[in-house]
């Protein structure tokens, strides 16, 4: 690959953000499960380098709507603010992403621009922009996303691994369970009853994690269990190949490749079971 010879500093077509501007934020709010939802708008003065988090922090300190009505600070989930923990995921202007990496300069460069914030729709709302993503983690349990080691005592080094494989696994392993792939997936839908979690679509993240652990020398031990789960209801065959997951993944994890790889694995797994009588 040839490196570009010219220094790249910014996109040429980018609108230069106006200084000292005010942007209107319209936020979907809900006081709790079963409570009525409402929209509230806030005008927020924008400092250079502002992101959605700093805007929400401003609103927390000045919770007054555009009608001049005093309200409560907006509730939202956040953590590292560096786009590695996955907590602050929400729907911004109709599209799911992390709010910490969403610079106001990029999405609302002009005075008077508007931005809407909504909670993710595929998980039950706890309050305002905060949703309960327990199902996402539950689905990792379904595919036994772990390496079954013998315990934490010192038993020497792990298996060696060639660098190519490490690169593949590392990429898959950067999944931060944010839920973007699930929010954008037409096959993954709101399911509030945990009783149904075992048979509802498991989602791209879990399929990709199954691949991650099937690729590991020791992780392979549980390969059959994982493939059985992926063959079953809500497994990899329930994927509709809309491929939204890979487009919204903030870590650019090759989720659709994982889906293809697991498709292949379950095909082989089932054939082996059929012809060789393997369990």
């Amino acid at each position, binding site marked *: 690959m040839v*490196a570009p010879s010219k*220094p*790249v*500093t*910014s996109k040429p077509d980018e609108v230069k953000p106006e200084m000292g501007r005010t942007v209107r934020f319209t936020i979907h709010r809900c*006081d*709790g499960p079963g409570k009525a939802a409402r929209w509230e708008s806030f005008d927020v003065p924008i400092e250079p*380098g*502002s*992101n959605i*988090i*700093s805007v929400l*922090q401003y609103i927390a*300190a000045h919770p007054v709507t555009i009608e001049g009505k*005093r309200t*409560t*600070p907006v509730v939202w*989930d*956040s*953590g*590292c*603010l*560096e*786009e*590695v*923990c996955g*907590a602050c995921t929400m729907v911004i202007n109709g599209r799911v992403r992390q709010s*910490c990496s969403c*610079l106001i300069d990029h999405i609302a460069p002009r005075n008077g621009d508007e931005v809407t914030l909504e909670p993710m729709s595929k998980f039950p709302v706890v*309050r305002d922009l905060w949703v*309960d*993503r327990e199902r996402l*983690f539950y689905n*990792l*349990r379904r595919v*036994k*996303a*772990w*390496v*079954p080691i013998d*315990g*934490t005592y*010192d*038993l*020497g*080094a*792990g298996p*060696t*691994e*060639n*660098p190519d494989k*490490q690169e593949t*696994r*590392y990429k898959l*392993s*950067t999944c*931060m*369970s944010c839920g973007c792939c699930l929010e954008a997936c037409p096959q993954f839908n709101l399911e509030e009853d945990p009783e149904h979690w075992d048979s509802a679509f498991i989602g791209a993240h879990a399929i990709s994690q199954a691949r991650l*652990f099937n690729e590991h020398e*020791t992780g392979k031990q549980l390969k059959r269990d994982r493939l059985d789960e992926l063959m079953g209801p809500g497994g990899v065959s329930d994927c509709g190949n809309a491929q939204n997951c890979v487009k919204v993944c903030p870590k650019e994890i090759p989720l659709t490749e994982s889906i293809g790889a697991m498709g292949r694995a379950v095909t082989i797994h089932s054939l082996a079971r059929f012809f060789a009588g393997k369990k």
Partner: protein
Amino acid sequence: MVANRERRVIVVGGGLAGLAAAVRVAESGIPVDLFSMVPVKRSHSVCAQGGINACNEVARQQGYSEYQHFDETIYGGDYLADQGPVLEMANWAPKVIDLLDRMGVPFNRTSEGMRDLRLFGGSLFKRTHFAGATTGQQLLYALDEQTRRYTSEGKINKYEFWEFLWPVTTGEGEDKRCVGIVAQDMRTMQIRAFRGDAVVMATGGNGLIFGKSTNSVICTGGAAARCYQAGAWYGNPEMIQVHPTAIPGADKCRLMSESARGEGGRVWVPRKKGDTRRGQDIPEGERWYFLEEKYPKYGNLVPRDIASREIFDVCVNQGMGVFGENQVYLDLTHKDPEYLTRKLGGIMEIYEKFAGEDPRYAPMRIFPAVHYTMGGLWTQFTPGTYDPSEPWGDHKPGMEAPTDAKPGRGMRIGAMNNAMTNIPGLYAFGEVNFAYHGATRLGANALLSCIFDGLFCGLGVANFVNEGPAAEAPAELVEQKVYDAAVESEQAKVRKLVDSAAGVGEQSDDVNPYMIGRELGIEMTAASTVVKTGERLQRCLAKLRELGERYSRVKLSDGAGWTNQSLSYTRAIGDMIVLAQAIAKGGLLREESRGSHYRLDFPERDDTRFLKTSVAVYDPSDADRCRIDWRDIDTRLVKPRARTYGKTESSPDAKTPTEKPAEAAAS
């Protein structure tokens, strides 16, 4: 009854230390209740980028050893750490790496499939293992996965989105013991007490006290502050590490890993003051590589405190900052872009994402930011078997490999008081444990100390429960009223805060918790970070008293009985002010400069007076609610020597030819 009683261990915090402890204790057959304010996979450990240190075979054959690692850590920490625990941590480092390797952490590999190593600050040997540029994330995920496995087997019970409020204790003086906690569900707001035969605090640092830091929004230090107010001692509160290279932002400062320097990143400013040209347009001869010139041996890889101070000095004192602002260049543009993507992809991405420029083609602009809390809950340990009369000498390449040499154990394995606070049954693991890093932490040692605590000291917790005081007087037999009283006390605090919200009509900044929090951050950053003076700290303490007074009248902006984040934040602000007072007072009384603690009015290290741990004891009768005691440090193995990292003189005018010392030293 006692024989088949239900034993339980409570772990508060789901980062590396908490998860390692939970897995270790669960593995030993004791059920664990794991509390975290966030799903454990989102804990702050994910932010660690660079790597994890451990002696390894390659370094060993070049003369490096666990002992050397220990020595570097002590030297880096400016002799402020007790040497036993640090020695044991260094001894265990290779085992920790092996274990993580077995758990499936995708460590970078050599072409032969071995774990690759990189050079990191504070060492001349390649001893840092790494997984891309998100090592902390990868390690945390490995432990999260093991925790998930134990959770599915019913051995660990996770309470996510639960906030620790207070440790429950019984008895007084000698008999005092921690028998559980009070916690609140952050969604339903339910307050409950939980019984535990031992409680492990693994709640991390307190960066949010400084407002914009590199820490996650959950790193308020609130949990540690609550234990401190409940009687736990707090060690070296003034030791706050400022990371030299962070990207200044509107909501927080984002870390630019030390690995950017480790991979050859060069720190410079234009030689011409206020140069308006873009960094990439300034010719080589007009750049002042001040770290390389002042520290020819370590160059850009000087330890963090030195780097921070030099950058601070260049910008604040000499006014040489880029574009006249508080920022310097961290330059990687001389490296192959593809190599950078492969080796530092994660952090390249962060800079591009949050600063809007591609660091492969334009030098990054960075400035120091509060990063790590060396201080923390004071903890004890049982010394191991090392023989201080025979300290190790330096090893040189070609000498007999020091594999067989036994420096002895620094801590006794399985001892019940390892990493235990002054309150029996209450442990502190990881960043909230003050024990390992002294006055400043070496890069890539934090992850190690967290996991080491969990694995090594976790055994002591199991022993405490199985054979120690908890076996004789299990928490199960403690009277219910002890727990009820603790819950009632917390409910009263919550009621007071929630009731204050009822009156919110016009909320003046005076009593607005967010404003108090912001002022706290600004004050602490100004007074108690890179450069401190007695006079400034005095003013800081006065400001903290003012903030404390205003906090007592604070008005909540949300009185909701469901998922009230405002309550949680406001409660933490109160605890942060208390801890800030200990930080400022410790800094004021430590009239010397040591590691990250730099007093302009006392620029030299003073081993006679201050080779001691400052121990803050909560004292409501004091104006600053704090008393500082001084405790001797165990320095029997490595005698304190000057900590200069081979500094020489340099100025922007002198053009010393520089090589890249790091790589030269490593080969």
